[in-house]
């Protein structure tokens, strides 16, 4: 892990994450899945806010699959989460590291894991963002997202326009999105009841 100073994109205060958690907070006994890289700060942050925190680093699984010349689908094929299990799923920018067919396949899997009316938060990079090293975000208490450089050398980068992201999530309705000066766009999706 590198020092966050000088890492692009820069840190920022998330507008969507508090909204995501606020909506989940209105339900009882929620199940929350964080698919991001394992960062102690994030586990500390979410484990105090949700009763059951599921963590599974899909980024390192993807990186490992590519390193071993296995298809990216291997990263999630063996995950045994039940259907319609989660009230909230935090995908971070997973779709930015998959081509369109793979991204569509993962979005379908995420759809299956999400309960009707469940929420999914997604990050994506602006089309013109620099192709720098992989950056994860560590959530701070004030919803500041601080960049952490993590070595995932085998993860490709696919930048997309906003409408392309929306097209990848057809069963979900977009509740809100917000674009920041550092080129990050945050999306909050809700699975429509008929999406299952």
């Amino acid at each position: 892990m590198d020092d966050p100073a000088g890492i692009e994109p820069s840190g920022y205060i998330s507008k969507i994450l508090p909204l995501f958690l606020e909506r989940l907070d209105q339900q009882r006994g929620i199940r929350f899945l964080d698919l991001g890289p394992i960062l102690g700060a994030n586990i500390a942050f979410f484990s105090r806010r949700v009763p059951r925190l599921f963590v599974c680093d899909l980024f390192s699984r993807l990186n490992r699959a590519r390193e071993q010349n296995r298809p990216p689908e291997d990263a999630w094929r063996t995950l045994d989460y039940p259907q319609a299990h989660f009230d909230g799923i935090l995908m971070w920018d997973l779709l930015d590291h998959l081509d369109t067919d793979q991204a569509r396949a993962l979005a379908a899997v995420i759809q299956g894991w999400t309960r009707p009316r469940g929420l999914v938060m997604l990050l994506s990079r602006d089309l013109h963002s620099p192709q720098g090293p992989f950056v994860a975000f560590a959530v701070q208490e004030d919803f500041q997202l601080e960049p952490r450089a993590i070595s995932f050398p085998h993860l490709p980068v696919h930048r997309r326009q906003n409408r392309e992201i929306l097209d990848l999530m057809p069963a979900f309705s977009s509740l809100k999105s917000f674009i920041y000066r550092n080129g990050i766009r945050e999306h909050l999706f809700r699975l429509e009841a008929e999406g299952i």
Partner: protein
Amino acid sequence: MFDRKKALKPEEGAESAMGKTEDKPATVPVAGREGKTIIGEQITIEGDIRGHENLVIEGAMKGKIALEKHQVTVGSKGRVEGEIHADNVTISGQLVGNIMASGKVKITKEADFSGEIKAKSISVEDGAYLKAVIELEKETKKQPVPAIGKAREETKPPIPPSVAAGKAS
């Protein structure tokens, strides 16, 4: 059956009633001066472990570990398949199974863990390999008379409304 090493050095051992340190290592832990058992790298165990001292596993272990008031450490070479019930648990090696800790669970970056964690608190080093379900013991506020018809309050850090608002597209 396994390589059992007492970590108690003579100077750390239980003192006799006369206040002198005994020559041989103590075998019975004394409050605040407990020993530990180390399962070495070349040892494989299948079965349950119960007892009253700390445990370090550097070998392979399959079964349940019940050391409720003690510390269990799965070292960087350790491979465990089963449940761990302990006070504090540190994982630096491989664990497939569940952890029930009355105290703290620490997962280091070398760890490869798959299972459920129930604990009072947790710390995880960046880069650890986890597929986990984490449930922390909630600190409940003591309220002498619970309000009827009012939802139970849980101690969750508040979400500032100022950050929830924002310019959305």
